[in-house]
């Protein structure tokens, strides 16, 4: 369980770096809420509690919701916040409907699904850790392999395109990495609060570092530590969901970093 928490914390924290720098924190929120129908759908299609199926479903519906927001913004001239809110609201509503459908079915399998709302790290099985490790390796692997490309696409996409970098492809890749960052933590932290675990470690890391690479790994470390602390604390208190505890720890870390961080914290400017 601890291994799972560390894996998801490091992955979402590190990959969240790009989301925050690209000002896509809210996209992460949309993907997380809209993951709910995918989780339930994956369960329904697999016929049993299968983490790979549920995470795959989460990935799909999360990306669809983000895609819906994109279509609304680019084809229908809807303002971006409103488009994001639409994806979030409709995605979650669909998830609620599907969840209630499953809950009416006979069989106790749905108990596992409800835990995706606020997260339940203790419910992680040993086999799940392998799945999470696989997702982490893919996500972090792609990010480190293409780090330079992702860096230019994030910092100055217009210039990068003129220079000959494949920015459209990199954009799609970055969106995919965000989806991975969100999905990997859903079981432990839940759909409602997962986006905070993508944002808070990166915000904290920005206050403490001077380069993108340093920010990336620091965010990962802080995310992993927060997730671990949260998982252990919530396991110690029966009936306590993991999500809120993890998010509070991560937010506290971010708050501390904002107050004291040398890079741009108040202490430096005093």
């Amino acid at each position, binding site marked *: 369980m601890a291994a799972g928490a560390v894996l998801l914390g490091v992955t979402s924290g590190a990959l969240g770096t790009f989301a*925050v720098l690209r*000002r*896509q*924190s*809210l996209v*992460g*929120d949309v993907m997380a*809420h809209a993951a709910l129908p995918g989780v339930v759908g994956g369960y329904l299609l697999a016929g049993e509690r299968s983490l790979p199926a549920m995470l795959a479903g989460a990935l799909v519906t999360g990306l669809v919701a983000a895609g819906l927001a994109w279509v*609304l913004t680019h*084809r*229908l001239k*809807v*303002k971006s*916040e*409103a*488009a*994001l*809110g*639409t994806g*979030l*609201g*409709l995605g*979650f*509503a*669909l*998830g*609620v*409907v*599907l*969840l*209630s*459908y499953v809950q*009416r079915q006979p069989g106790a399998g749905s108990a596992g699904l409800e835990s995706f*709302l*606020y997260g339940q790290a203790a419910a992680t099985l040993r086999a799940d850790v392998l799945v999470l490790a696989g997702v982490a390796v893919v996500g972090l692997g792609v990010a480190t392999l293409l780090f330079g490309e992702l860096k230019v696409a994030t910092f100055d996409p217009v210039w990068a395109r003129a220079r000959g970098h494949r920015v459209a492809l990199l954009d799609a890749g970055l969106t995919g990495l965000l989806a991975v960052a969100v999905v990997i933590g859903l079981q432990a932290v839940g759909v*409602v*609060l997962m*986006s*905070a675990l*993508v*944002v*808070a470690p*990166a*915000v904290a890391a*920005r*206050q403490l570092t001077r380069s993108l690479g340093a920010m990336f790994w620091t965010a990962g470390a802080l995310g992993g530590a927060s997730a671990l602390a949260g998982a252990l604390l919530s396991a110690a*208190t029966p*009936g*306590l*969901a993991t*999500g*809120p*505890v993890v*998010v*509070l720890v991560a*937010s506290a870390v*971010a708050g501390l970093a*904002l107050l004291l961080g040398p890079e*741009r*914290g108040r202490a430096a400017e005093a």
Partner: protein
Amino acid sequence: MQPLLDDVAFVVTATGVLTAAAAALVGSVLVVRGQAMLTDAVSHGVVFGIAATFLVTGAVSGPVQLLGATAAGVLTVVLTQALAGSGRVRRDAATGLVFPALFAAGVLVLSLFARDVHVDTHTVLLGEIGFVWLERVPLLGLEVPRAPLVLLGVLVLDALYVLAFHERLVAGSFDPVHARLQGLRPGAASLGLLVLVALTAVAALDAVGVVLFVAFAIVPAVAARLVAGSMVGVIAVAVAAASAAAVAGYPLAVSLDVSIGGTMALLTAVPLAAASAWRLARSSA
């Protein structure tokens, strides 16, 4: 009258309509101002207020709760603006940092200290619209369900405020030149709007929970904005669309045996699809 108020279908549907209409009303203004996600932040933030008020006063409902929760919703936005204003965090990250933290704190307190009380983490997230007919208050010799009564009051308040101040609130939003100057609009009218959004979110909590409130606030307004060119037009269409979704949602949900609130919220996609299709057809014609 009393038989109507005792009819579950009527009460649940009416609650849904009132929730959807009130949410769409304030949501319309926020969407036109380019502040749609404020609804997300506020509705999550009120949970912190509910938890804090409960800790301090032990109250679970009533005017004190209403006040505390509304204040928390406003506080969420104020904190977010302050953080973004510090220059160290961009607006989207500030939003994504503040309201989840407050929401998490609220949920934590509720699950630790309010275990046996009516408000719990599940209700807060999803609402319990199917049970709103249970809690009643005596009014003018009748037994009136509390939730829709509160919602009716909030709806009237919202309508009066928005119709009185809508010009000031959305000044420039329909003018393409000035539309760029969106964003922070300090001023009493904006603060009043924020308070009302929080109040509406609190009132809607019992019925549909925090996230579905966002759906009712945003989706009908987006649909309305695609077809209407004036603030009054947007409000009218949004409220109508939201109400229709609520009315259609109840029988559909009952027949499929799924979440009533969820179905009502999901049905707001229908007017959105229709408005989008109309808009796309018009622009290619």
